[in-house]
């Protein structure tokens, strides 16, 4: 014969009566206690009402329109950086580094903006200029995800896309090479890993396009991969110098 449940035990085990599952003997003992104890019966009734009220809480509405902000972010290129732990901003000497590197980043930003404008006009026409040209070197967004901007392809094939991006990529590679010694080695490693991933994607897209030259999906994928590469290089150019 099991001893009757005490009030402190009931308090501890009352959830057994509120939620499905659990031990049947415990539920039975708790129910028997609630039948015999007015205080614990009141507790059980309160908690049951609380649970029912929680389940019928309605939906809430944001106080302002959120779509415009979301739409703006969808138009902003996003660069995949896997490891943000090496960001200079998190290192103790970050502030000093930033000051020293600022002039270089600013100079680079000017060059990048110029090349970005050319690429935008060639690849996308003027209607989508904000996507590439509006971001510039310092405006790139770092995040752990693929490009959020839906690509719009104007060039007719892989060769056309290549030509549009080639000159900018060459120029950006040259800038990154000049800055390489001043950057944190761990950051450089992350950038190179990401560039390798993007280059693999570009190569796969080109191979697939060679077999299916009219595929809009493949053209968009190729443009997107190139966008990611350019954006990553722009960000690398604008990174503050390491200590």
């Amino acid at each position, binding site marked *: 014969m099991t001893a009757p449940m005490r009030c402190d035990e009931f*308090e*501890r085990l*009352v*959830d057994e009566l*509120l*939620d499905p599952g659990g031990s049947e003997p415990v539920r039975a003992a708790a129910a028997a206690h609630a039948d015999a104890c007015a205080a614990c019966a009141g*507790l059980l009734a*309160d*908690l049951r009402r*609380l*649970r029912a*009220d*929680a*389940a*019928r*809480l*309605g*939906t*809430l*509405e*944001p*106080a*302002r329109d*959120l*779509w415009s*902000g*979301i*739409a703006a*972010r*969808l138009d902003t290129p*996003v660069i995949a950086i896997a490891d943000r732990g090496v960001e200079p901003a998190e290192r103790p000497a970050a502030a000093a580094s930033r000051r020293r590197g600022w002039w270089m980043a600013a100079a680079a930003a000017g060059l990048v903006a110029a090349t970005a404008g050319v690429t935008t006009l060639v690849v996308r026409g003027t209607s989508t200029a904000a996507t590439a040209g509006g971001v510039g070197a310092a405006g790139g967004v770092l995040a752990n*995800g*693929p490009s*959020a901007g*839906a*690509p719009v392809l104007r060039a007719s094939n892989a060769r056309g896309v290549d030509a549009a991006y080639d000159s900018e990529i060459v120029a950006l590679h040259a800038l990154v090479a000049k800055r390489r010694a001043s950057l944190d080695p761990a950051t450089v490693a992350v950038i190179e890993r990401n560039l390798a991933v993007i280059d693999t994607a570009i190569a796969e897209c080109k191979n697939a396009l060679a077999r299916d030259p009219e595929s809009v999906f493949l053209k*968009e994928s190729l443009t997107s991969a190139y966008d990611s590469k350019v954006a990553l290089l722009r960000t690398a150019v604008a990174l503050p110098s390491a200590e």
Partner: protein
Amino acid sequence: MPVVATIDASPASANRGDSDAASAAAGDRRAFERLYHGHVNRVYSLCARMVADRTRAEELTQDVFVRAWEKLHLFKGESSFSTWLHRLAINVVLNSRKSTAREDARFDDPAGNAGLDSIAGVVGSPMAPGELLDLEAAIAALPPGARHVFVLHDVEGYKHEEIATQLGVTTGSTKAQLHRARFLLREALNR
């Protein structure tokens, strides 16, 4: 009984949502905007109740939809789009670290009243009865751990196993947090 999916409850609505999800995954912005309008209040409700901060909830809601746009190619239709989006929203909220300082500050309030003011601005439904407004405010004033489990279990209808997986803790921990939350809420509402 808690309702997990109050939106897209009808088959027609669910089909339309899944169709829009397929279109959006292919880059159709208009389809994605329709998905947004169909789901924004539910996502916002989850965010608002989880973080108990109106402004932060709006930011997180935007984060959820941006992430959804990025991740739509991973949506394979094994569950409804609503369910997929809701789980994504929970991940975004739980992975968020920006609200930590604000939540900590609320906890440090010895009277435990800081959440009441903020939730007054969070509640957007003018039809909510007074008792439910009290409950919303009391939930907002809960400690974050207890609040997260209470919202996911008693408001959203998730099981302990699912919550434990999402939070990366044991079911024993989620049950303890739920117990704590219920007793704190009872005390707050009976004041």
